[in-house]
């Protein structure tokens, strides 16, 4: 029961953190507004007031941040469970670059504009890249060890980036729009984006939640899982699809936001263990909160402009990654 209490406490803290971060995100910025304006905006009063308009402009960004952060961090949970590898993360696996490549390809050769087709392209690109990187890392007898996975991911990212540059470089208009997309940011998102994103993410999160018992079993050795009667192949494919879908959607709309999927699940796991039901929920809550906080931090550090949340998460996440590496036992690398 002790564990249960711990989960409850952590959930409470998480919700509190999320709440505070939402308030901060709405009130803080180039134009700071008071809490009363926020309440007015939510209740639909004083709509002609300037501050209330500011709030309404910041609402979609905040909401999008919650969804994106939750998606990315749940995606991280799924990928880490499937690969049984603590450092599997969309950015490490090179998934972001894969999605970027496909989107750039679409923009410059087929002149694709609609955001829905961005999502489609990103999904295909992300899926292909992650499968490729994972297969590449699992060649050889020792399987996909963290170091093989990380190196394969980094190397494929490098290779794909040079392809991207080839496409982008000659065309300065593509270059400009790509430059802004390439650095993940939740700043430019609108209500339409949220509506577009929501069905996919809700679907993927629900499915992965339903899979959580199976995922718990998968954490045991493969042989044990089969002996317990689990259909490993199906669980793995479903979970992988959900994981890729979650990060591809976010990447398509906000650009690559790295390390959320790595650090949040790691921190949650180290405090409540690796049972998937609470892990998924809590990763979602904390992921949303941390992404919004990064966004707010970016606004503070980047004043008078702002620092894109993608840069912020990398600046916070990379040290966390190194910390995880330092803590890990040598043999498990």
């Amino acid at each position: 029961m002790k564990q249960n209490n711990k989960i409850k406490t952590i959930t409470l803290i998480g919700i509190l953190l999320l709440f505070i971060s939402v308030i901060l995100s709405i009130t803080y910025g180039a134009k700071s507004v008071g809490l009363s304006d926020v309440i007015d905006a939510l209740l639909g009063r004083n709509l002609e007031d300037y501050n209330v308009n500011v709030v309404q402009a910041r609402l979609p960004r905040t909401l999008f941040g919650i969804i994106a952060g939750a998606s990315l961090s749940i995606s991280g949970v799924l990928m880490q469970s499937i690969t049984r590898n603590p450092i599997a993360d969309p950015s490490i696996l090179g998934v972001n670059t894969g999605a970027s490549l496909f989107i750039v390809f679409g923009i410059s050769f087929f002149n694709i504009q609609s955001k829905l087709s961005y999502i489609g392209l990103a999904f295909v690109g992300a899926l292909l890249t992650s499968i490729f990187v994972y297969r590449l890392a699992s060649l050889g007898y020792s399987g996909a060890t963290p170091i093989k996975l990380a190196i394969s991911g980094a190397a494929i990212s490098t290779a794909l980036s040079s392809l991207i540059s080839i496409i982008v470089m000659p065309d300065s208009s593509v270059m400009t729009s790509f430059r802004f997309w390439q650095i993940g940011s939740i700043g430019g998102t609108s209500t339409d984006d949220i509506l577009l994103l929501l069905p996919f993410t809700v679907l993927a999160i629900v499915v992965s939640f339903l899979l959580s018992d199976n995922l718990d079993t998968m954490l045991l050795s493969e042989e044990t899982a089969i002996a317990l009667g689990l259909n490993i192949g199906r669980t793995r494919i479903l979970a992988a699809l959900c994981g890729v879908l979650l990060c591809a959607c976010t990447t398509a709309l906000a650009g690559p936001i790295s390390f959320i999927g790595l650090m949040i699940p790691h921190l949650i796991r180290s405090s409540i263990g690796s049972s998937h039901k609470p892990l998924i929920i809590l990763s979602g809550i904390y992921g949303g909160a941390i992404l919004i906080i990064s966004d707010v931090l970016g606004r503070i550090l980047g004043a008078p402009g702002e620092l894109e949340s993608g840069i912020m998460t990398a600046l916070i996440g990379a040290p966390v990654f190194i910390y995880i590496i330092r803590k890990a036992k040598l043999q498990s690398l």
Partner: protein
Amino acid sequence: MIKNEIIFHGIEKRQKHYYIAIFIMFIILAILVCLNVTIGEKNYTLAEVVSIILNGENNYIIMKLRLPRTIAGIFCGIAFAIAGNTFQTLLGNPLASPDIIGVSSGSTVAAVFCILFLNLNRGIVSIISVAAGLLAAFTIYKLSCKNGFSNSRLILTGIGAQAFFTALINWMVMRAAEYDVPTAMRWMAGNLNGITTDTLPLLVIVVILAFAIMVYCNQSIRSLELGERYATILGVNVSVVRTLLMFCSVVLIAFATSISGPIASIAFLSGPIATRICSNNQTNYTSSALIGAILVIAGDFIGQNLLPTRYPVGIVTGLLGAPYLVYLLIRQNKGGVI
């Protein structure tokens, strides 16, 4: 007396093969250099170029553009190649080249900062980015030491640091004035445009000096290939040799980066390609240096003359590198080297 000479035939054959390979590479490099100085928007004959150089004529295209460009290409190529090769050997992993484990991007951070925000000239930028590269390498090394040194941990820490530095670079590029950005982007792609003659002497001196030191350590490096323990047993002073070689490599990388930008793939391709071609499976600075120079000069020539748009050399080499990288990954993972 040697009774059973047949066991050494293989060694001798490969030695001969090696000298022939070096010779051929030399010829190829010479041909590429000739192509690079003669062909361009305005074509010259080789005789014209030679007479211009010998007479010290004041020909802008040759003396101020093509010649500096070619020299910079050769020496940056050598610098990237031997530095990359050293990292790969010391860390025992063909993929652990400085551009994957964060050393190059450490010095890129400093260089981009100097270029975009301080508008410093190239000479000072070089020195600052060398310092930054050393600092980055030292930090990554220190962070990866816990209960002693471990190659795997160093590589993983490097990948983390790489992400961190990339974020910093992106930040600066985003904050920079709009008109500086294309310059910075092109520079970051690895580029031989805008090389000025004043930076060349320093580059040449640094590269030759570092090359000499590395060749001096060549035997020790070969023992280190067998792993640290063997090297110690065979009488190599591992920590001294490793520190010295790492230091030289970082200086080379940072210096070359500050001049040409990070030219993709050279650092990690040259060593393995040279090993392949020379087939004597030994770390060899001469052959990898030649390959590095050939790759850069050829990449630059292709980027300037053979493609519909002018691409910076880094893009061309990056593209050439991608398939080889995948091949290397497959081979390495299959062989279970790590």
